[in-house]
């Protein structure tokens, strides 16, 4: 077989696919054939490469040349210039914000430079649907190692010593969890991979499953061996079709190689996996709800203890870990607990994957060592706030987390450091907000989410979140009362301490942190009927500045409710009674003549 001289690592993660990556792939194949290069240049579909903002992206190897924002029409030129003639094309390379010169190599781009890949070690380097490529990068060697050289006790000890903590939100020691399940009496035990990622703005787990599905299967097989399970479930939400497709392909391929099934590696160990698709209820991310759903029951949490390690799926000892946690296992086995625990901080070891979204320049998926500051993530990796606006806060941990303000930006990433400032690492969502975001509205938004996703089983969560949402909505409408803040604070404490599961217990976090760090915004809404960020529609008015309006009529033509009147070349006026405050006039005005007042 002739080896390909050049590999085009085309990102086929969900982000790039939705930006027509598959059309680009077809165009590449067509153009390569036109130049008779199909046997020299290989097109490889990889999983998400992380830099979703610039998609569709592609890395050319050898050379590490990074191309971004590709369009079908660019492909013929690119193929002729670079792949036929060998001249990398500058115009499709990344140019940093405020910079002039393109950066040809991926490894020189700031977004990638500060990252440290463990869970995403194979990102962009393999075709997730080709098991041989996974094996080529030490795949399944950790499983071979545990089955041939290690006792289950030794595996548990290694994971425990590594300091790995649950990446799904709880942050509980993974090794200890395994130990509980291992020591629970019972001849029938289960392993579960929680891929029910539901936080708004989070897509870490989806990307791992899409870009490296075998890493999950290998991790689960190792965990099953350690605790004595023979069957595993992957609970993945059905909104992730590409992840479901790739994990199913991976399971099929692993079975064919005997890496799942009976007597794996002839070591007398049996293990198989099945995929269960969830219907997208946020509460299923909670382990007891997930297990209930897996059993075919209503997805409602139950009181713990007993913990799933004692009585989980069908009442049998069950160990459940999140996708990212599983993705770390094979590296810990292959490289050792000592190596893993040398990365990170005293109490938070290893790396964490974050999905960096919101008003940040480099939206995408990043993996960083624990202990890096929030500032480094947002400014060095994320490239700062969009459109040169001022940074206001970042919401970490999704609806269960809190807002971290500018003054606490130097906080190092870690379970305990984040807890101390009222937030959580959670599963790794990071939503960046700028000066135009109203923090009361942010709290209202997250509470609306948890309220809607509350399963309704326990009263504090079902009723409490509804009342809190009512109060927050009222404040954003300018109908807040002086005592509202005290009532909110009381309710936060009550819901936090009496809810049945983490969904309710953490729901107050966004409210508590915004009230703590942005109390002046709450007070402006209540006392002055004013929204300082000028976002709350009930409290703002749009006006046209007479000295700037040129009478171009653009706003009047684009207004969906015809609230704007004015002659050509004459000053235009917005009728506040008709205006729905959609903001289109401000967006289309070329002269900065539309102003929001509050």
């Amino acid at each position, binding site marked *: 077989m002739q080896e390909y*001289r050049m590999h085009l690592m085309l990102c086929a993660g969900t982000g790039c696919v939705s930006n027509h990556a598959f059309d680009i792939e077809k165009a590449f194949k067509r153009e390569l054939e036109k130049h008779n290069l199909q046997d020299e240049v290989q097109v490889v579909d990889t999983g998400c490469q992380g830099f979703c903002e610039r998609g569709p992206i592609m890395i050319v190897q*050898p050379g590490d040349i990074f191309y971004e924002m590709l369009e079908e029409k660019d492909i013929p030129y690119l193929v002729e210039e670079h792949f036929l003639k060998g*001249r*990398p094309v500058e115009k499709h390379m990344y140019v940093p914000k405020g910079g002039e010169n393109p950066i040809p190599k991926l490894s020189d781009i700031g977004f990638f430079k500060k990252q440290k890949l463990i869970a995403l070690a194979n990102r962009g380097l393999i075709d997730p649907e080709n098991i041989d490529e996974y094996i*080529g990068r030490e795949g399944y060697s950790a499983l*071979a190692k545990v089955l041939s050289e290690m006792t289950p006790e030794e595996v548990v000890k290694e994971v425990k010593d590594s300091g790995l903590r649950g990446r799904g939100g709880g942050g509980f020691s993974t090794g200890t969890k395994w130990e509980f399940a291992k020591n629970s009496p019972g001849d029938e035990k289960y392993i579960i991979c929680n891929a029910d990622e539901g936080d708004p703005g989070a897509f870490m787990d989806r990307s791992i499953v899409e870009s490296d599905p075998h890493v999950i299967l290998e991790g689960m097989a190792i965990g099953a061996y350690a605790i004595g399970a023979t069957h595993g479930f992957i609970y993945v939400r059905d909104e992730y079709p590409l992840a479901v497709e790739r994990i199913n392909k991976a399971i099929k391929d692993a079975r064919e*190689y*005997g890496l799942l099934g009976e007597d794996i*590696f*002839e070591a007398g160990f049996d293990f198989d996996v099945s995929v269960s698709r969830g219907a997208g209820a946020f509460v299923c991310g909670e382990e007891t709800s997930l297990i209930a759903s897996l059993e075919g029951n209503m997805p409602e949490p139950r009181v713990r203890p007993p913990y799933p390690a004692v009585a989980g799926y069908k009442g049998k000892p069950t160990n459940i870990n999140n996708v990212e946690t599983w993705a770390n296992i094979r590296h810990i086995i292959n490289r050792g607990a000592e190596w893993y625990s040398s990365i990170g901080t005293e109490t938070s070891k290893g790396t964490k994957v974050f999905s960096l979204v919101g008003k940040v320049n480099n939206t995408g998926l990043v993996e960083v060592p624990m202990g890096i500051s929030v500032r480094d993530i947002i400014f060095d990796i994320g490239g700062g706030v969009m459109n040169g606006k001022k940074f206001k806060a970042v919401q970490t941990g999704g609806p269960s987390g809190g807002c971290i303000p500018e003054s606490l930006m130097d906080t190092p990433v870690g379970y305990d450091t984040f807890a101390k400032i009222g937030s959580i690492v959670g599963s790794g969502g990071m939503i960046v907000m700028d000066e135009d975001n109203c923090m009361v509205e942010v709290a209202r938004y997250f509470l609306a989410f948890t309220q809607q996703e509350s399963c309704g089983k326990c009263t504090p969560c079902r009723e409490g979140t509804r009342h809190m949402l009512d109060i927050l909505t009222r404040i954003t409408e300018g109908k807040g009362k002086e005592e509202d803040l005290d009532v909110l604070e009381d309710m936060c404490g009550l819901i936090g301490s009496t809810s049945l599961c983490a969904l309710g217990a953490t729901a107050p976090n966004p409210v508590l942190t915004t009230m703590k760090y942005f109390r002046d915004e709450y007070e402006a809404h209540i006392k002055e009927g004013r929204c300082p960020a000028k976002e709350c529609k009930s409290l703002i008015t749009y006006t046209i500045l007479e000295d700037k309006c040129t009478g171009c009529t653009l706003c009047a033509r684009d207004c969906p409710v015809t609230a704007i009147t004015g002659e050509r070349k004459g000053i235009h006026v917005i009728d506040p009674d008709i205006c729905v405050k959609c903001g289109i006039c401000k967006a289309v005005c070329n002269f900065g003549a539309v102003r929001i007042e509050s």
Partner: protein
Amino acid sequence: MKLKPEDLKKISDKMEASTNLRSGAGRAKITVHMGTCGIATGSRDIMKAFLEELETSGQKDILFTTSGCAGLCSHEPMATIEIKGESPVKYVHLTKEKVKKIFDEHVMKGNIVEESALGRGSERVG
């Protein structure tokens, strides 16, 4: 096919060239210069000749790549051979026969083929 632990190594070996190419790991790198001047003097044939040598040799840890004009158009076709840890050597006026000799002597054994070499080193970048 049910794998045994030793089969992982076999698959890994089969994938080695591909894995090395993507991660940039290799003990040597061959670069054929393919500017307009290079292409006009037949650098595609030179590229193919190198690729054939590479394939026949079965070596998995040698990277092959192309680049633009090296700036010495009158001496095309040209190639640069870089053995890890040593300074790169530029070869000029290449032919298929010269490629074979350079591959056998320099890439495989580490002996520079003086008669085709222009000199050692690269100009400084930046």
